[in-house]
């Protein structure tokens, strides 16, 4: 049991490091509180943004937390396959630069996995393979496929 856990932990940690470094100039990793007896301790999530010191995930800024969380969720894939990901405005606290990089990353992640992402930002939406525009007509919701050029007009 502890061996299976350790093996999977290492796979997830490796994937977490890889995904995070694609999203951000920096590094992030997972650490076991008690490596000799993993079930008797927690799992720390540490992240280092740019040339700042590394910090535990809980004391990062709002935008930094969102990026670290996305990287962690996608890293779980290494040990436990999900067929699709559904994200509802995960970019709400991201600045323009981080949103752009997230869009690029999701575009390449989308080659192997299905992503359904709700966002209000054109910088992110425009990177998608398919864009669904949701709108209200006479008090009821409707959905339609949009092409990237229509984004600007649809506003």
């Amino acid at each position, binding site marked *: 049991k502890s061996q299976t856990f350790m093996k999977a932990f290492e796979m997830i940690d490796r994937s977490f490091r890889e995904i995070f470094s694609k999203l951000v100039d920096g590094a992030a990793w997972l650490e076991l509180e008690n490596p000799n007896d993993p*079930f008797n301790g927690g799992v720390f999530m540490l992240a280092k943004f740019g040339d700042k010191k590394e910090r535990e995930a809980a004391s990062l800024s709002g935008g930094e937390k969102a990026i670290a969380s996305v990287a962690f969720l996608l890293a779980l894939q290494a040990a436990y*396959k*999900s*067929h699709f990901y559904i994200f509802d405005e995960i970019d709400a606290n991201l600045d323009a630069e981080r949103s752009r990089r997230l869009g690029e990353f999701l575009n390449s992640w989308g080659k192997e996995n299905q992503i359904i992402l*709700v966002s209000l930002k054109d910088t992110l939406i425009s990177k998608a393979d398919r864009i669904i525009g949701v709108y209200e007509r006479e*008090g009821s919701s409707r*959905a339609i496929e949009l092409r990237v050029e229509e984004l600007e007009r649809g506003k």
Partner: protein
Amino acid sequence: VYISRIEIRNFKSFEGAVNVELVKGFNAVTGRNGSGKSNIIDAIRFAFGENSVKALRENRMQALINDRGRGRSARVSVYLANEGDAPFKEQQLVITRELLSNGEQRYYINGRRTSRNNVVDLLYSMGISSDGLNIVPQGAIGRIAEMNPSDRRELLEDLI
């Protein structure tokens, strides 16, 4: 396996019949505030058997039926396309859940009436659930980073 289509009938802000076609890759959903984006995600979770009304952002089941369609039923079908990695042979699997105006609920797999447990078990065998980590509701993304270390270990333990 991926979600290829969602058919929404009288569910929350969707009056009448609305279909959403998705691709295997990166799908983006956008639109004004209050247009119905999060309700599409609620529709998927509803079809997958989500029984917590609060998780569907309402206070009672009947409120999931469109305001103007109160005499009718709410129904959502999620089409799962099979790329050879699924535990079923057919090209696609259609999961349907219906909420009648009298409160009765019905589940269907490929059009055949079945129980909620059958739906939930079949989805579970594919690693799918209405409250899985792969579905992140609006406003919840920061909470993953804020988890305390022992909860995070338990999360990994449950997955592995």
